[in-house]
């Protein structure tokens, strides 16, 4: 009788510990951005200008195995002449701790409005690219990506 009680106690204690550990783990996860934060970030960068879909091509793998390094290419259809060129391209995400990813400035000297880099993704989410043209219009493209191994939550190596 005594033995079984002590066993139950041990199990309860173990369960409590495990629960506590899970809670701790949750609490140390960085706060993720929300789609609203992304909208705010977009507005703070481009102002109140309307954003149309099209012209921009955001290239990301739809299924990402490792969110720590995701190849990403953005290109915009533009003649890139002194009269008609892409001024800037911005990438935003919904669920990383911070909604901004990169902001790039171009000029007519760029020749081609395209660049590639590698980004971090903390969760399956929508990634948006917005391009600002020299005539003041904004164009966008977005992609839903599924991330199996998230960035940022990994424990660092000792």
């Amino acid at each position, binding site marked *: 009788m005594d033995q079984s009680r002590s066993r139950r106690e041990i199990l309860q204690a173990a369960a409590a510990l495990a629960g506590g550990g899970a809670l701790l783990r949750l609490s140390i996860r960085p706060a993720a951005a929300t789609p609203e934060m992304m909208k705010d970030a977009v507005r703070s960068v481009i102002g109140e200008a309307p954003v149309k879909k099209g012209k921009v091509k955001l290239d990301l793998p739809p299924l990402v195995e490792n969110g720590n*390094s995701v190849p990403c290419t953005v290109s915009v259809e533009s003649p890139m002449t002194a009269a008609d060129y892409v001024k800037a391209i911005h990438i935003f995400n919904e669920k990383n*701790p911070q909604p901004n990813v990169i902001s790039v400035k171009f000029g007519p000297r760029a020749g081609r409005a395209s*660049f590639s880099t590698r980004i971090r993704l903390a969760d399956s989410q929508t990634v948006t690219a917005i391009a600002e043209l020299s005539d003041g219009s904004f164009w966008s493209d977005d992609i839903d990506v599924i991330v199996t191994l998230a960035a940022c939550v990994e424990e*660092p190596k000792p």
Partner: protein
Amino acid sequence: MARALIHVPASAKKGDVIEIKTLISHVMETGYRIGITGTPIPRDIIDDFVCTYNGEEVFRAKLYPAIAANPFITFFTVATASGTLAFAWTDQHGATQVQTAAITVE
């Protein structure tokens, strides 16, 4: 600051659009990770990258913590004249690393 790799074509025809690839070794620590002592690891990122062609700015990027470690950036420019391309990475503490590459334009 760190080791940087740059790929620029050694020569190009005038008016050609050339591709430039750059990579610099840097941890790009986000500031959102917790270290083994339980305290957050301080943020340490490169936040600005500029490419100038014979002194004229052709490409500039503002980087955020969502850029993967060892920032790799490729972009394009028009080959206008022989000269040097200068690449400058600036980290959040203001330290700048400059690397140059020569190009011959026919």
